[in-house]
């Protein structure tokens, strides 16, 4: 199939037939906010931050999973979308205990920078303040459920890139939790290879390296894309 042309935010852009609205926008230098999407992993469609308006259609579409079509007219940041995004980030901040000042990821957190970028200065929702454990049974890494936003990047990295599928989600709704193996302490997991890809993928301070200072807690989020490109295209692009 031939290349497609479409309009994103009034700008005429080209896209490969296999592109999604998100990847086409990225190529064209148009930034669509995301939290659960990460280059190198399959699209999840869960955070709903990348919702865009297409044409005069009232139904919003997630940019990360919607394929491009010829002559599509996409708007990525109408007032309605921005308002929804603010509300989604506020919902996340109220859902668990996101206390940046005492968080290991302070300054390197995607949720934090997203809140700043969208101008979320106050939360009108009730803080749920759940009591959640921190799992530091692993030798090198830790899992703090208080900071988890359930984006499942770690689950997908573990399954799709490392192939271990140590991590998964248990429970449902607001009670969902990331678990190692059959919900046992991470350190007791027999499948974990300690590769740390989950830690690199995590957008917040939910997964962290033990022994690193806050200033050192920078994560390499391009690592997964690098691995995928190396494996599939045999190209070592840094």
């Amino acid at each position, binding site marked *: 199939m031939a290349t497609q042309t479409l309009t994103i935010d009034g700008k005429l852009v080209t896209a490969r037939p296999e592109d999604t609205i998100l990847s086409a926008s990225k190529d064209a230098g148009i930034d669509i906010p995301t939290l659960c999407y990460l280059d190198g992993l399959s699209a999840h*469609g*869960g955070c709903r931050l990348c919702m865009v308006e297409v044409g005069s259609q009232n139904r919003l579409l997630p940019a990360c999973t919607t394929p491009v079509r010829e002559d599509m007219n996409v708007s990525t940041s109408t007032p309605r979308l921005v308002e929804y995004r603010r*509300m*989604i980030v506020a*919902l996340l901040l109220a859902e668990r205990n996101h206390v940046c000042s005492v968080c290991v990821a302070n300054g390197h957190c995607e949720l934090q920078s997203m809140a700043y970028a969208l101008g979320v200065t106050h939360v009108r929702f*009730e803080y749920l303040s759940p009591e959640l454990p921190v799992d530091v049974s692993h030798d090198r890494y830790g899992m703090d459920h208080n900071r988890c936003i359930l984006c499942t990047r770690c689950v997908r990295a573990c399954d799709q890139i490392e192939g271990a599928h140590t991590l998964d989600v248990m429970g*449902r709704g607001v009670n969902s939790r990331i678990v190692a193996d059959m919900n046992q302490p991470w350190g007791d997991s027999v499948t974990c290879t300690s590769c740390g890809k989950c830690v690199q993928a995590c957008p917040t301070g939910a997964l962290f390296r033990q022994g690193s200072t806050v200033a050192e807690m920078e994560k390499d989020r391009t690592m997964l894309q690098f691995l995928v490109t190396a494996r599939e295209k045999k190209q070592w692009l840094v």
Partner: protein
Amino acid sequence: MDLQDLRELAEKERRSQAPRSIRCCVAAGCTSANSMAVLDNLQQAVQDAGLKDKVHVSPVGCLRLCCEGPLVATDPDGHLYHKVAPGDAEAIVAGLGNGGFAARRGDAASPFFALQASVVLDNCGHVEPERIETYIARDGYTALFKVLREMSPPQVVDEVTRSGLRGRGGAGYPTGVKWSMVAKNQGDRKFVVCNADEGDPGAFMNRSLLESDPHKVLEGMAIAAYAVGASSGYIYVRGEYPLAIARLKTAIKQAGRLGLLGTHRCNSPFDFRIDIRIGAGAFVCGEETALMASIMGERGLPTPRPPYPAEKGLWGCPTLINNVETFANIPAIMRQGADWFAGIGTDSSKGTKVFCVTGKVKNTGLVEVPLGTPLRTIVEDIGGGVPGNGRIKAVQTGGPSGGCIPAQHLDTSVDYEALGQLGSIMGSGGMIVMDEGTDMVDVARFFMTFCMDESCGKCIPCRAGTVQLTHLLTRIIDKVATPQDLELLESLCDMVKNASLCGLGQTAPNPVLSTLRYFRDEYTSRLRAGGVVRRALALPLVSLS
């Protein structure tokens, strides 16, 4: 088996029927009221009276008036007995042919029965769900033979399209269009899936149908498989329906043994096997993409559509997913023709619909009426209105995805469009009647709590949004909410509705929106004055580079 064998089997079964019969309901409702003991005693009483050759006692499916169960009917007397105790068996047998047993006799000609129409439920309460012969004796599986011998797959699809049948699971998508999509999509394999994951509070249509007449659903699926070119099918039943599962298993086994399902079914070159998959209690698995994930052995999480199941469904193959009741309509359409079916109902909503009338209403049970019947007829004439001369305040349709229709709109015709205009939906058929004493905000909170508990947790608007909506509704009920809370409730409803991933989240705000639309004063009268409650954010006040 070929058509001749089928006809002979039907004839044999009809000949063997005794001149008199006593039908005892053994669907879940009556069974839980001890109808199995009633059945045993009836059989014993017939034997004791020496009437074994003259009277046949049959365990049948739902006799519809569930609130009066255990129900027993006698033929050809036409009596219907209510709340039959095991001890009544002898009196019922003694009353055969001579006026019946007055103490338990109900009115079989009451509006509850007289105003109903039967297409989907025509066998319910007549066939024995665990004996395929009784289904065959009532022209069962003749539609399948007709289709396999006389029609091409496109003709079958065309017949369904012309009938105007729309999906009975809730959304009302034209069934013929769905079949046509699956038929036209290319794939190495294709699947037919029956969605029997009925989870709406107060809805038991599919359960009753599967417990009463499982073969009708199997026949509908077999016809669909031929039309779209599928060779295997799944019935996804929720685990909470053990009786339906057991009867389906028996039915599949019996149909397979007679060569009606399986390899070279009905002596034709076509194969079709059906397997049962049992749900583990997640409401979200009624959503088709989550249902497919569950069938494939994965976590029951929805995925964004497109791709639709008709294009990429089970294991990436084109998959047809229809509701139990949709499949149950198919044999009748094939036997009696699309024009006959299209003659029932309204211009855009054809055929009949089964509803479960429950709540503050005299006659609770299973009701089948032509689409376009006024809501008032269903709840006041058939349902008998509120017990003790109370007044109806609202009728909730469509379960947690639907809305409340207030009493002033009771004359609305029950069809897909009219219910949609009122801010509710047809849904799968739950119909909960509420009287004047009902607190509508509490109703909204009940459904929101349900959605919160059943949210899968994949997308944020549904996972975290339903929790906050429940909290806001609780604040309103506790009279601590401010006008700003109500404003926040409305804007959050808007976001959850538009940004959620699947139907569960997208429709979760509907009960709130519809009660706000018709009973806004119940919300506003509980608000207290006050400013915006803003919670300080725990983000540090340093700028990030």
